[in-house]
Each structure stands twice: as C-alpha cells, then as structure tokens.
C-alpha cells in the first residue's frame, strides 16, 4: 500500500560521494571543453560534469542506457538539469574522455555549456496534449538538428536559451527565453453546442474569455462568440471541449526573442514577438528552423562578446534588429493588449 504524503526521496541518497563530501564547499569552476564543467572544491577535490543533450521524451530503455553509463563511469550517479539535459558526475578526470567516447558512440551530443545553445525547454504538443497549436518534440528536433554545432561548440556571443510552448498556456514558459517558439491559433473557436451542454458551466466559460468575446446563448444552452473580439487565446477551449479551436490550416508558430531570466547585468526581460506566424510544416518545420537560424546568425555576427540576444537588441534598438535580420515588421507586432502603453515609442529619438 502506498504511503500518503511521504514526499520525494531525500536528495542525499542520490548524491555521489564526491558531492556529499564537498557539499557547499565549491570554490570555482572552469569549462575545460564544451560540455564539461570542472568544479574545484576548497578541499582540492575536482568534480567533472559531462552535460549531454536529451530528447526529453524518452523511453525507459534510454533511461536504462543512461544508468548503464553511470554505473560504468560514475559509480551509479547522475543528474538532470533545469533544461532537461543529463549530467554525468565524475570525480576522476581520467574517465572524462572515455565517457565522452561512449556517449558519442551512442549518438548522444555533449555540449550545452557556456556560450552555447542548451537544450530547448518544451512541452507535449501532439504527442499528449489536447490544446496544442503545433507539435513540440518535432519542432525541437528539427531546430536542434539545425543548431547542433552551436550545442557542441561554444562559439556564440553568450548563452542561448530557446523555449517552445505548443499553445498560449505556455507550459514551456517560453515568455522569458532568448528565442521562443509559441504555438498559436488564428481563428475563433467553433462552437459545438452539444459538447457545451455536456458539463460546461456557462458562467465560468463566459468569464474565461479575457476580451469578453463570449456571451451566453440561453436558447441553445450554449454560448456565442463575437469573432471580432476573439484573439484565439484558447482559454475557452481549456475550459470547455465545445469551443473547438484547433484549425490545421491556420495553426502555426510565432517567434519571440530577447527574453532572459538571469539578473546578471540586466534585469530579467520578456521575449518579444518578431514573427507573428509561421506555418506548421511537419515533419521538419523548415520555415521555423530557417527563421531561428537567421536570427542566431545575425546575432552571432553582430553582438559583442557576452551579450545575450535581448541585450544586443536593446543596445542596437529593435528598429535596427528588423533591418539587420530582414524580418518584416507589421502591425501584428505592435502590442494592443493591457500593457501596450509601455511599448509605444514615447520619444522622438529612434533610428531610421
């Protein structure tokens, strides 16, 4: 029988001995090569962490493979990172290269440290969620195949964090990423009265619409949508399956850039929309991968060392970003929601 409320396993039983011994005693780190962190302790101990890219959506066989490697090289310990990479933890420098060789043999990429791109934080998409406007894993695979070099080498101006969310619920929390890919709908929900009648609380449904586009339709015991007011956020669909919002012809991806969450140098910042829509073109989403490569290439060519995407853009100005990348500007990129006022250029100083 299950023990209720026992909570997660204690982390201590998961830590390798070298970490237990040097817990809280780390003095500094270096990155001897991409994908490898070397942490040095007050005690003189040296810990090597080998960072490995993972597709995140994996089989238990994959996990077992990881365990085999950890057993062989790391005395049975490993961890995952905040961005879903795997980290193998080694006290013994001589095992670093053999482990990397073993990983390479398995086709697992080593990298993601320092001024590189790390793994893409992402979501379920068509694999498992009911509200997606795009797939998650497929887009990520396509993008990472294309950016593979940037994962395995540290040749970017700074860290690059890409996030993907397959609908505006934003489970990928992409809103503060250097580059964000967000699944978007573009047509109002199609109302299925029958489904609504089954178990939808009409007042909650009406209240769920941020723009007040939904009003009750007492005759049909359902609702009506004022299509002019709808901005396709899908919140009503989250509330009721009767508000069908998926639309294969018009669903796709928006691209936002320039967010970050670290407080280093500049305050955390939101990602901002630069491409309002790119089509869903499975299996390889060429429009998306191309758009992202373009942004990264222009950033890499123009930014100063250490400048995150958003820091670079804020220095040169968004107007220059559009010139340099050749991305067309449009009224869709101008905010028209609650906090729009702050985005308007209330200044006569700008670049042509």
């Amino acid at each position, binding site marked *: 029988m299950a023990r209720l409320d026992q909570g997660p396993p204690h982390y201590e039983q*998961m830590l390798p001995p070298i970490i237990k011994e040097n817990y809280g005693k780390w003095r500094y780190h270096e990155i001897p090569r991409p994908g490898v962190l070397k942490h040095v302790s007050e005690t003189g101990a040296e810990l090597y962490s080998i960072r490995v890219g993972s597709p995140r959506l994996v089989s238990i066989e994959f996990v077992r493979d990881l365990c085999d490697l950890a057993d062989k090289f790391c005395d049975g310990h490993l961890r995952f990172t905040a961005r879903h990479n795997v980290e193998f933890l080694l006290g013994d420098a001589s095992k670093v290269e053999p482990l990397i060789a073993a990983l390479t043999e398995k086709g697992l990429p080593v990298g993601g440290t320092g001024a590189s791109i790390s793994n893409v934080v992402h979501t379920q998409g068509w694999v498992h969620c009911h509200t997606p406007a795009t797939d998650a894993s497929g887009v990520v695979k396509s993008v990472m195949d294309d950016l593979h070099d940037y994962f395995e080498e540290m040749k970017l101006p700074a860290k690059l964090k890409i996030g993907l969310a397959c609908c505006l619920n934003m489970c990928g929390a992409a*809103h503060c990423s250097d580059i964000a890919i967000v699944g978007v709908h573009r047509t109002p929900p199609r109302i299925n009265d029958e489904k609504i009648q089954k178990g939808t609380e009409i007042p909650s449904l009406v209240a769920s619409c941020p723009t007040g586009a939904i009003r009750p339709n007492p005759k049909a015991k359902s609702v009506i949508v004022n299509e002019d007011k709808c901005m396709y956020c899908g919140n009503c669909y989250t509330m009721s399956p009767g508000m069908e919002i998926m639309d294969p012809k018009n669903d796709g991806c928006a691209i936002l850039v320039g967010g970050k969450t670290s407080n280093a140098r500049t305050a955390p910042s939101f990602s901002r929309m630069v491409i309002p829509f790119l089509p869903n073109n499975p299996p390889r989403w060429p429009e998306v991968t191309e758009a992202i490569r373009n942004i990264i290439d222009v950033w890499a060519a123009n930014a100063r060392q250490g400048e995150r995407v958003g820091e670079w853009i804020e220095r040169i100005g968004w107007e220059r970003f559009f010139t340099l990348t050749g991305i067309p500007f449009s009224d869709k990129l101008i905010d028209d929601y609650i906090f729009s006022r702050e985005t308007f250029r209330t200044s006569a100083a700008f670049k042509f």
Partner: protein
Amino acid sequence: MTEKRTPKLDELQKGKWPSFVTEMKRAAVKSPAAAELVQLLEKSYEERKGHWKHGGIVGVKGYGGGVIGRYTDVPEEFPNLAEFHTMRLNQPAGWFYNTKSLRDLCDIWEKHGSGLTNFHGSTGDIIMLGMTTEHIQPAFDEFSEAGFDLGGSGSDLRTPSCCVGPARCEHACYDTLEACHDITNEFQDELHRPMWPYKFKIKFSGCANDCTASIARSDCSVIGTWRDTLRIDQNEVKAYVEAGLDIQAAVCDKCPTRALKFDYKNNELNVIPEDCSRCMHCINVMPKAIQPGKEKGATILLGGKSTIVQSAFMAWVIVPFMKMEGDYEEFKDLMRRIWEWWDENGKTRERIGETIYRLGMGKFLREVGLPPVPQMVFRPRANPYVFWPQDEIEK
C-alpha cells in the same frame, strides 16, 4: 493492429540531435500503446492537428492531483490510447539520482505504463506518460514503495524545484536542495489536495543567475543573495589580469550599477558596497576572485506566471532579504499568510500575481503584514491615484 508506415516521423529519426521518434519506437517494441502513439502522431503530422481530448478526472486514493487524465478522440482507431493518462512524480531535489532508483522507476513503468517518460516535465516532475485508468492505483502503490510520491496538478501547490546549488555550485547563497526538500515535505497537503483558486509554483535558485528561471516560471521565486558586501581576493584579481582578462571592459563596464573600480596601477579591484545590486555579473566572470558576501539569505519574489490570461508576469520582490536556514519557519509562515489571503481574495483560475494586480499591492501588503519598501518597485507610481485607508484621514 498491423504495423503501418510512418514516413513523416521517420524523417525525424535523421539528423544529429537524439530523436524522440526513435525513443517512441523503442518503447513501442514492448508497449502496444506506445506503438499506437507512433501511429497517432504520424496521423497528426499528416493532418496538422492533435488527437487528444479533455481529461476526465482520474487519480489515486487520498489525493486530489498528480494524475492528468488523457483520452484520444479516435479511440476506435487507437483502442490502446482510449485512456492514456499522465502521472507526475515528484523528483528528488536538484534532479539527482542514483541508478538504483532510476531503474526501479523504469521497471515499474514497464509494468504499468507505456514505457514513455519525460525526464523531466517542465515544472520539474518526472512525467510518466501514458497509462490506463486501472493501472493508476497499482502503479502509484509501487512508485510509493520505491520511495517516490506524486507531484502537483490542478489548483494546488505544484512540485517545487531548485537549482543544483551547494551540491555543485560555488555561488549558492543558501542550501537550495535542503530548502526545496524541507518545504516540499512541509506542504504535502497543499501539494496533493487542490484547494486554492489556481496553481501555485515555488522555485529555489541559489543566486541571482536564477538557474531555475524562477522569476519567470514560478509564483514564488526564492533567489539567493547576501546582505553585506561581496568579497574580492586581490591575488586572484592579479592572476586574472595576468591570464589576460580585460577587467575594465569585461567586468567594470558591464556592472549595471558601476559599483566596481579597477585600479590599473596596482591591478586592484574594489567595490562600492552600497552601490552593488548583487546582480552576479562580476562573480560570474571572475569566480576565483570574487565571491558573495558572508551574510547570506534569499530575496523572495511573488507573482510570476506565463501568458494566460492577463499577460505574463514576472515575479517581483516582496521580501528583499530573508534568512533561509533552520526549519525555514519564516518562509513557511509567509507562504501560509499569502495563501490564506489569496484564498479569501482570489477568483477561480486567478494566479496570485493576478489577484494582487487586480486588488493592489497596498492591500496585499497590509493584509499579509509585509512592510512596504522601495526594493519592491523599480520605481514608484506615476499616477496620483492613491487609495487612502479612510482611518488614516481626518473625518
């Protein structure tokens, strides 16, 4: 069901990045559900739309959350996906594992589920992806036996997570793993039995680098910091100079508050203590020479969430400095006061940040008992629309 071709998905087995399709196919070898999932996904790739329906309520005895119901909308075609629920397991703090635990998880999941999983979910849980309703309770029982418990879902405390912190990072200003573990255990009831207006997430980062992205991704963000002055080791400064670092350009010029003064003549670096905002930049560049101060603790920020509905909010400062030690009672007490206030004032499906935005920080601070300080704002209000508590004025 006969094996069908998946030409679209096969494309995604090419390329250098490890392939989730390959993983799905690996699981498909043993799991008919996983096999159907490959087909269903191919269908989605052809039709450019998903094939999942809204979840019905499923769960384990004694808990209100932790399992997400999921059903395909084409059960006739994919009978093994008619029920295909997700179970969220609370990861160990810092996402550290020994292989024994991981193998246990795999074995249980092989028995009860699709063999597909996310290491990890975007909130931090281990995601066990795809099981039938009847397997939920037995699977849970076994996971429990193996030492694991469910994570959060629904309108409850979501599974907290933390950065690697003192386990492997020289910057950690408090013990993120211990804090995360202790506080997660304290609030098991809140985590397992949804009873709030909406979800509530907590993330622990050991310093302002915020490696859990807590400021964007959690309602409550706990970010390590210090109250005194950062410490500079002048010998190490000289070593960096010798190694060729341009300290003026790479460090001083990028200090947001211009708090660092580099003395070229003596190769000395000094900080103006009251100007430093503890952004971590200089420490990041020169970890051997600069380290946080000695009087360590954390800044508590509140209100982060993503886009839906009012726009994304980042969490903002509500306690500039709090010691994160011992039994964390100060923090726990604060959480309880906040939740109580939110319970009383929040609307259904309104995150705490949205409730405060709607009702005003003044009301929130007064009622939760937090002293207002300028650290809470980038800048004061630009409008003169002050609500005066009518007991403060002369009647």
